[in-house]
């Protein structure tokens, strides 16, 4: 079933690499332009559950890697499907200097909070997203905190350190 | 000194004067009719005191009773002719301004003819004479219904003509049979010669006459023509038709039933019971048809059928209270229905549509007319301060006084009819006053000429309502005259 999927992928998308690590886990690396089409392709195949959307800050490659983990609710995903669900990991790299990507809410509606979180913590802008408002953090940060170039100790020092203790300056 | 014949001759003369006058000046024709009607009122008021003791009997042409055509101007006759003349006068004043387009002189001539027919029917003591006046009445009303000249008017006039013709022919056959049996045309003679009305040879003519007159008196199965005729005729005409024509028909039935066939006296035949049931049936059918109606004139026509049913029921009970109540209801219905038709005439004229919802907001635009309409409607329902209340009171009391359970059921039906009547009249009052609409019409009163009759009607209704003693005296003597047949015969035959 996995080979059959692999053949179909290569047939429809050019420049996509499919590798399968464990027995029921496939990693597909695709360039950002075709990412949405690929996700649509998988959705039609029955992978209707977006388990996780996360980002990886590859600071040395000056890129962010967006990782979509897809599974299917239904046991068999095709006629001769192997019993037990199949986990798909779709990765695509976007340049670090202008981190924008298209929102997948149209395909997977439940991606909305994930995209807000990634926007807040990595600063990746998802255009087409209804409201990219902050989700967890209370304050504004110069550099989104999860980026590797964000020095947390220095931030703590100059933000919290600068707040004087009560009672001591009045003597 | 004053001869009742004048009551018929003067209006007839003036009626034929109008076409001649119209050759001279077109406009003059519309001022003619009020004159003979005033004359009639004066004459009948003069005759009234003499008629109260005993009816004035006049035989035209001097022949003996068996052959002569004689008029019996008793209290009933005088009362009704006064009412006919009075209402005719007011409607003619109203028509002066209302009837503008079309052959106005022919309208006024027919109008006078209709009134003479009505007065004749009321006064005559001879059944063939009754038929002649009845024909004058019907033919002039056919023509008047078609006066408007639009498709609906002509079509309903033709229908009215056909049914009227059938009715008159039945009446004629009945009269012929009676004449064959008794050899005389004088009502008193026949009454004297007739023993038992239930024997077949007498019953068939009675049935024929009653159905013939019934067509004109709008009794239930026979009144197919009324809704179309009254709704498509111009307002003054339908005022006269509803106000006078059907009442006169009903009077004729009463006269025939009471004096000629004397059903009230002999207790064996309960034909009157049948008439009472028929009356209530007419009432219920009339009211129920009016409820769902949204063409205002058809609604008023149906309510006339309802009221006729009530009067027939009252008269058919044949007790003194009942007949007084019936006549009182007849008078109050004439006043109220004429008022309603006159007010509706101008309202629909102003809003150019007969639909009830089109009358929204007229209360603000034409305050006096809509107030008059409301008073007329309340009087028809029988609410206290207006004329309808004492008459309905008398009828209900008479029904309850008979102590028979059939009459209890019938009066229950009558009261149910009143509730239905209240339902649709209050709906119209709501539409008039409490729905906004017709803001485009200028706030202009009805022209003065039309305002006079409306105000007089209102004064009369409220006056009689508050102080009914005003006419109850006249009514009780009229009822007495109608009921006891023997006095009638003695007076006429002397």
């Amino acid at each position: 079933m996995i080979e059959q999927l692999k053949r179909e992928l290569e047939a429809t998308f050019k420049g996509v690499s499919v590798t399968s690590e464990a027995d029921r886990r496939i990693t597909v690396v695709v360039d950002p332009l075709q990412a949405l089409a690929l996700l649509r392709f998988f959705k039609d195949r029955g992978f209707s559950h977006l388990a996780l959307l996360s980002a990886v800050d590859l600071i040395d490659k000056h890129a962010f890697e967006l990782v979509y983990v897809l599974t299917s609710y239904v046991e068999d995903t095709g006629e001769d499907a192997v019993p037990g669900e199949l986990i798909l990991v779709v990765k695509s790299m976007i340049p670090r200097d202008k981190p924008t990507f298209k929102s997948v809410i149209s395909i997977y509606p439940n991606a909305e909070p994930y995209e807000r979180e990634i926007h807040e913590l990595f600063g990746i802008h998802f255009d087409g997203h209804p409201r990219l408002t902050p989700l967890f953090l209370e304050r504004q940060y110069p550099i989104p905190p999860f980026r590797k170039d964000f020095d947390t100790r220095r931030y703590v020092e100059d933000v919290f350190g600068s707040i004087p203790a009560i009672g001591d300056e009045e003597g | 000194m004053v001869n009742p014949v004048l009551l018929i001759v003067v209006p007839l003369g003036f009626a034929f004067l109008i076409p001649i006058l119209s050759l001279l000046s077109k406009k003059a024709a519309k001022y003619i009719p009020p004159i003979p009607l005033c004359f009639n009122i004066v004459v009948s008021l003069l005759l009234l005191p003499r008629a109260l003791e005993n009816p004035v009997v006049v035989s035209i042409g001097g022949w003996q009773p068996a052959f002569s055509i004689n008029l019996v101007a008793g209290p009933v006759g005088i009362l009704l002719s006064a009412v006919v003349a009075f209402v005719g006068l007011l409607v003619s004043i109203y028509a002066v301004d209302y009837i503008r387009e079309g052959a106005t002189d022919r309208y006024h001539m027919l109008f006078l003819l209709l009134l003479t027919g009505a007065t004749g029917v009321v006064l005559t003591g001879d059944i063939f004479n009754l038929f002649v006046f009845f024909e004058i009445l019907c033919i002039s009303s056919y023509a008047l219904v078609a006066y408007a000249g639009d498709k609906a008017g002509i079509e309903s006039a033709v229908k009215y003509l056909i049914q009227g013709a059938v009715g008159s022919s039945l009446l004629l056959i009945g009269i012929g049979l009676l004449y064959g049996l008794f050899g005389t045309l004088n009502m008193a003679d026949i009454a004297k010669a007739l023993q038992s009305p239930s024997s077949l040879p007498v019953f068939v003519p009675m049935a024929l006459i009653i159905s013939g007159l019934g067509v004109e008196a709008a009794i239930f199965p026979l009144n197919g023509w009324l809704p179309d005729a009254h709704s498509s005729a111009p307002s003054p005409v339908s005022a006269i038709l509803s106000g006078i024509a059907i009442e006169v028909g009903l009077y004729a039935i009463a006269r025939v039933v009471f004096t000629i066939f004397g059903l009230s006296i002999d207790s064996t035949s309960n034909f009157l019971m049948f008439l009472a049931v028929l009356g209530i049936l007419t009432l219920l059918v009339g009211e129920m048809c009016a409820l769902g109606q949204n063409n205002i004139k058809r609604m008023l026509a149906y309510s006339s059928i309802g009221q006729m049913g009530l009067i027939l029921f009252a008269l058919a009970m044949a007790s003194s209270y009942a007949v007084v109540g019936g006549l009182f209801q007849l008078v109050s219905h004439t006043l109220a229905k004429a008022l309603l038709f006159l007010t509706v005439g101008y309202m629909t004229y102003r809003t150019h549509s007969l639909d009830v919802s089109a009358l929204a907001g007229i209360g603000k635009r034409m305050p006096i007319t809509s107030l008059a309409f409301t008073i007329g409607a309340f009087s028809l329902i029988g609410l206290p301060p207006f004329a309808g209340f004492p008459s309905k009171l008398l009828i209900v009391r008479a029904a309850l006084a008979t102590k028979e359970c059939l009459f209890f059921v019938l009066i229950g039906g009558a009261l149910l009819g009143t509730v239905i009547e209240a339902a649709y009249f209050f709906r119209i009052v709501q539409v008039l006053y409490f729905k906004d609409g017709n803001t485009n019409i200028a706030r202009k009163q009805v022209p003065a000429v039309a305002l006079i009759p409306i105000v007089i009607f209102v004064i009369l209704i409220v006056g009689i309502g508050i102080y009914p003693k005003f006419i109850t005296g006249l009514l009780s003597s009229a009822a007495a005259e109608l009921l006891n047949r023997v006095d009638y015969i003695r007076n006429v035959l002397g």
Partner: protein
Amino acid sequence: MDRNQIAKWFKEPSKMANKYSLHAIYFCTGCGIIEVPPVITARWDAERFGVIPVATPRQANLFLITGYVSVKTLKAIIRTYEQMYEPKYTVAFGSCPINGGMYWDSYNTIKHLDKYIPIDGWIAGCMPRPEAIFVAVTHLWTLIDKGMANGYERYKKYYRAYRRNQELALGKLEWPPLYPIGEHTEGGECD
């Protein structure tokens, strides 16, 4: 425990009553709240000392701040503290409110809680055991006795500094200041 010395009751009833009727507001601020259920139930039974959890700050006079304080929770803590009324005491659980504890370098936690609200008692330990809570309570009694548990007076005295620190940490606060500060109350009328 001088609860049943009647003479003391008559001398200063409010101080004694405050000592032996500490109603703690049941407000889960951080990881330490898992310690409170065993404290108030069968095994350690805080009710012996008159300490019971209550639902609203209005009824409470003891505020247990249990565990680390994230920036978002600080807003709720300040709001709740201001809704309690004198005399009120706060006890901070664990090392995180003291100096940030193991989250000393996290961008999202408050390091020194006493910069924002006055604290009367500290319990060290990365989640102190229930016995430590009772030590704190008894320590609080002595503080009340000596009149040193005056967090609420300090809050009133230095309210302007507290308010400034709070707005430094949290940005503009929606609710008006508790005590009239005067110069820079933007808009909101003080109550």
